[in-house]
């Protein structure tokens, strides 16, 4: 079956698809999170050294992974937005940014709560923590720039360029921070030497990561719908869609 994917680069044809996608991935996210939490909290054994405190890993690791991954996806959409001058790509990048910032903040927050009982401190200037903090600043910079520019099309392009400059910088920042940390002091607790984990623990992390992934897609699609409605307000296709809804035809958005 041949699908003309370019058809969906128009907000008009993408809107219904986003509506369905948001609902489907939302359901997936809920199911996976339920299963993941069951594995994480009941099935997985208590850690020998860290006790039950380690269980925050099931939120912490997926959040940290998603924070980095979402930035990458955002950079991809930004490149498409600049390269093809595509409106919808910029909207996708815009829709992903808040979730990325939330994930980075969540990773730092849960990390602090995990660090307290195991390391004895909420915060250490560990290389990974510092680069996640800078990643959070990059997200906040993109959000602030979006907020500061009136014209949405100009904001699209400005944010896309900033995201791409940031994306090139992320590995440099990561390695420079690692270098800085190793120069100053040996890391007291190393993440790189992975402790042997029980298979159920790994399974829990992977299921929770899949849940976080589905959640991100669902939220981004729901948000992109809101962005489309906001920007296309007054467009006839949107008004006729609303008209259909009011008469009970068509499905309500997620």
């Amino acid at each position: 079956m041949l699908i003309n994917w370019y058809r969906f680069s128009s907000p008009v044809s993408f809107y219904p698809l986003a509506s369905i996608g948001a609902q489907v991935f939302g359901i997936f996210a809920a199911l996976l999170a339920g299963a993941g939490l069951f594995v994480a909290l009941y099935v997985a054994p208590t850690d020998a050294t860290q006790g039950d405190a380690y269980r925050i890993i099931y939120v912490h690791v997926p959040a940290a992974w998603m924070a980095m991954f979402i930035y990458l996806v955002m950079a991809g959409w930004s490149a498409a937005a600049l390269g093809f001058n595509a409106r919808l790509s910029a909207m996708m990048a815009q829709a992903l940014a808040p979730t990325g910032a939330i994930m980075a903040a969540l990773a730092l927050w849960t990390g602090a709560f995990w660090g307290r009982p195991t390391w004895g401190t909420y915060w250490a200037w560990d290389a990974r923590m510092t680069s996640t903090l800078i990643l959070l600043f990059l997200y906040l910079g993109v959000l602030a720039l979006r907020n500061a520019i009136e014209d949405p099309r100009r904001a699209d392009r400005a944010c896309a360029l900033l995201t791409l400059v940031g994306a090139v910088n992320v590995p440099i920042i990561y390695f420079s921070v690692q270098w800085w940390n190793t120069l100053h002091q040996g890391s007291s607790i190393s993440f790189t030497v992975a402790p042997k984990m029980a298979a159920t623990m790994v399974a829990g992390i992977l299921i929770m990561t899949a849940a976080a992934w589905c959640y991100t897609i669902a939220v981004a699609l729901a948000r992109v719908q809101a962005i489309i409605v906001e920007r296309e307000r007054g467009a006839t296709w949107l008004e006729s869609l609303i008209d259909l809804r009011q008469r009970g035809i068509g499905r309500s958005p997620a």
Partner: protein
Amino acid sequence: MNDTDTPALRSAPIDARVDEDETDDAMSSVLGAFAWGLARDVRIAMRSKADLGVQLLFYVLVVSLFPLSTSPSRDVLAMLGPGVLWTAALLASLLSLPRLFAGDFVDGTLEQIALSPRPLPALVLGKTAAHWLTTGLPVAVMAPLLGAQYALDGRSLSMLAIALLLGTPILSLLGAIGAALTLGARGGGGLLALLVLPLYAPVLIFGAGAVDAVGAGMSASANVALLGAGLIIAVVALPFAAASAVRIALD
């Protein structure tokens, strides 16, 4: 791109379209654009020397506040010195960034520059070089003097100057992108800081690390090499990003 009604001429003439016979020759066109941007912005900066003095005074002031807030002990100062001198250099660079494009943006000169047949990245690189000559270079020259107040030894002081000479151009080039992106945006200085300072982090790490390494009796060659490599990449790649940021701002 909007057409302005009349080209708003500032005191320095916009003669980017002279030497039209040269535009065939790509190299001379690039060099000409660079030289023009550099000469014009240096000339404008030299006409407001007080601004430049305030810039440098800001650096001196920030650096002088740290002993007041921590301790006058030589050991503490020698330990803090490289970091303080570098962080203050970042802030001084940040403070001066709006000058890079804002004036030209307000009076329409930037639009004329972008419309000229000369390559915009070279023009932007010239303007950025002028920005560095008038803000980064004075800081790098001043820093060893202030470093002496922080009880840094001679080798640390010369390394501080070298590291700042290599690092501050990168700050100007990265900052040019942020300065162009925030043209006409709300939020002003705080927004610019949020955009630019995270990108400055690697320069800070390698720059302050170089001075720290010399102070600890180690070789700083790795830090200096990384700063140099960063400078080369920045000079080659960032003017293109800054030029597209200028075009976005003028859209």
